[in-house]
């Protein structure tokens, strides 16, 4: 296959496969979370206990709009992380070229949403790449962060930088030392890999974040009688303490 054919394959069937995995995988974990939560909340209600929705919402929103809380712990890292998140969410969704892809892919030529001017997208892509580098430096450079880091904690940020760097290069052939097709192939392949990994890695917080505070709350709605059942399972009924 030629490079062009590889690119077509990556943009076509491979992208669809990655999307399919993303959608199915995300539906699975979100579905499981919602189902679990519905059951927990129903059981808690039956037990005459209410969910403090306002507290849960407040705790969740604290980190949707984290400006106020960012500096309280590891300020530089937290601010970098906010910049990183904003740039990687905004750029791919609001890039004009990506809107065209959606229109073509879904065959809905009338589909429209506001798009970024190319220059703004460039700036945001640079910001994304720089913030990834900063995040990695702050992780590698901090003994406490290293102590809890797994392979995916280094790999995923680096992987996320790839489509942004390659996208930038593809848009600016004058500074691109590689061929356009090769650059696009890297862009599409890395993008696909990210989509594919979302349901299986910590990237799943993309979908699960809204449930986090609620599930922590529900964990403390303890189940009456559970202790004695545990004792029975372990053959300790009526055993002295």
């Amino acid at each position: 296959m030629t490079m062009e054919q590889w690119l077509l394959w990556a943009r076509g069937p491979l992208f669809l496969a990655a999307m399919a995995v993303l959608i199915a995988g995300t539906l699975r974990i979100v579905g499981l979370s919602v189902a679990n939560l519905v059951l927990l909340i129903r059981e808690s209600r039956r037990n005459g206990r209410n969910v403090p929705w306002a507290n849960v919402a407040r705790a969740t929103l604290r980190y949707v709009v984290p400006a106020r809380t960012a500096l309280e712990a590891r300020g530089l890292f937290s601010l970098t992380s906010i910049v990183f998140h904003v740039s990687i969410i905004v750029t791919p969704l609001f890039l004009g070229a990506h809107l065209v892809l959606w229109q073509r892919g879904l065959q809905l030529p009338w589909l429209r949403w506001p798009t970024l001017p190319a220059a703004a997208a460039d700036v945001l892509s640079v910001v994304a790449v720089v913030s990834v580098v900063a995040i990695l430096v702050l992780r590698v450079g901090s003994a406490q962060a290293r102590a809890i880091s797994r392979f995916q904690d280094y790999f995923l940020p680096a992987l996320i930088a790839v489509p942004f760097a390659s996208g930038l290069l593809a848009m600016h052939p004058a500074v691109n030392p590689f061929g356009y097709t090769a650059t696009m192939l890297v862009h599409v392949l890395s993008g696909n890999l990210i989509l594919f990994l979302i349901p299986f890695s910590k990237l799943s917080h993309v979908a699960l974040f809204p449930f986090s505070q609620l599930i922590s709350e529900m964990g403390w709605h303890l189940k009456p009688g559970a202790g004695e059942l545990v004792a029975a399972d372990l053959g300790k009924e009526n055993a002295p303490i």
Partner: protein
Amino acid sequence: MSEQSYAYYTEPFSIEDRPRRFLNAFSAILNRTHYGPVLDHYTRVSAKCSRCTASCPVYEASGDPRDIPCHRTELLLKVYRRYFSLTGQIKARLFDNYTLTDEKIDEMAEEFWRCTACKRCKATCPMGIDHAMVTHIARWALAEIDIVPKALVVSVREQLEGKTKNTSAIPLVALKDACEFLEEELEEMFPGHPIKFPIDVQDADYVFFPAVSDYLMEADTLMGNAAMLYAIGANWTIGSENFDGIDYGLFYSDRMWERIIKAQVAEIKRLNGKVMLIGECGHASRSAKDGMESFIAPEDRVPVMNIMELAHAAFKSGKLKLKANVIEERTTYHDPCNIARKGWIVDQPREILRHICKDFVEMTPKGTDNYCCGGGGGSVSIDEIKDFRMFIGGKTKAEQVTATQAKYVVTPCANCKKQMGELLEAHKVDCERIGLHDLMIKAIELPDPPPKASDDANAEEGDSE
């Protein structure tokens, strides 16, 4: 049976086949409780962002990576992922990457008891991971294979199966003697006022459950409690069959937590009481409030109230009259984590203190963002880890108190009181730890003594009959 091998003492436990038995216990807990979906969620979203490193007092003081909340939590999440999640089981078959061993159980046994369950880290976690809940679950699973601090299990055994039915093993006669003694003391302080410690009053509004250790160690707090209750004309009682608010189940086992709260509620029902009134104690308040809502059938529930809430409400309504600026010395307030972290009791005692103290100062941070005294999560009862409590768990708190230059640090919790007293001594801080009611008793204005009172009735309170 094992030799002792942890920082805390345990009773002898079997070391045979421990990984399998731990997994059985963990599996039973996951099957029977609500914790499964929570751990499942945490294994997915934990991003290892390391923000918790900036909020944990234990890690801040020790600098030891094993004290990082996320590091500790990962110990249990690894077990969950490997043995209870699909991907973990597939991965294990492909890479043989993790097996639960005796060493890993020992690691959990040490590290989950270095957490004071203060929950400071939860607020800094963008994913809302409740590391204290993970600690709670891990300790329960460990306790089911008999790895649990001896100090706690011995107390719970006495409370649930012993003769005295309380954690300090105080016989009822001794309790009655103590109460009579305190009544005499109060009679001297407030002549003409029959301030009583009523026992077994049927249909009382408030059934009183202080940390039972108060009867041995915190006489001033109890006298303050009784004086306040007298001043507001409360119809209250102590139950002779269960007078201990302590519930160590909160620290290591939901199974014990449920049994203890049920025994306490049974006493309230026997007396046909209306409100469960907890003394100055953080963990007793939280275990009663959460335990009541979780474990007690809705029709049997009674409201749970901390005595500071009652005092504050009476103060606001004007029922409790307190002299202003009676306490001349500089005073600060320590927030017990179990009542402050969620914002339950933060401002109430402060309103009282600002009124009765001339020079009330705050520590930073405070309230919902406070630092643990270093004795949380049951650790204060474990004497053999005192050095850890003094110089790691409580280091920041000692610095905070020192910085205020206060003469009194109001510490309205039995656990925090013991820890704070030891802490101030260990760090040679010129400050006295004291209960809210111990201070308040100096400011209480009682109404005119009842007509029958003796002639020295006007000695303290001014107005004679």
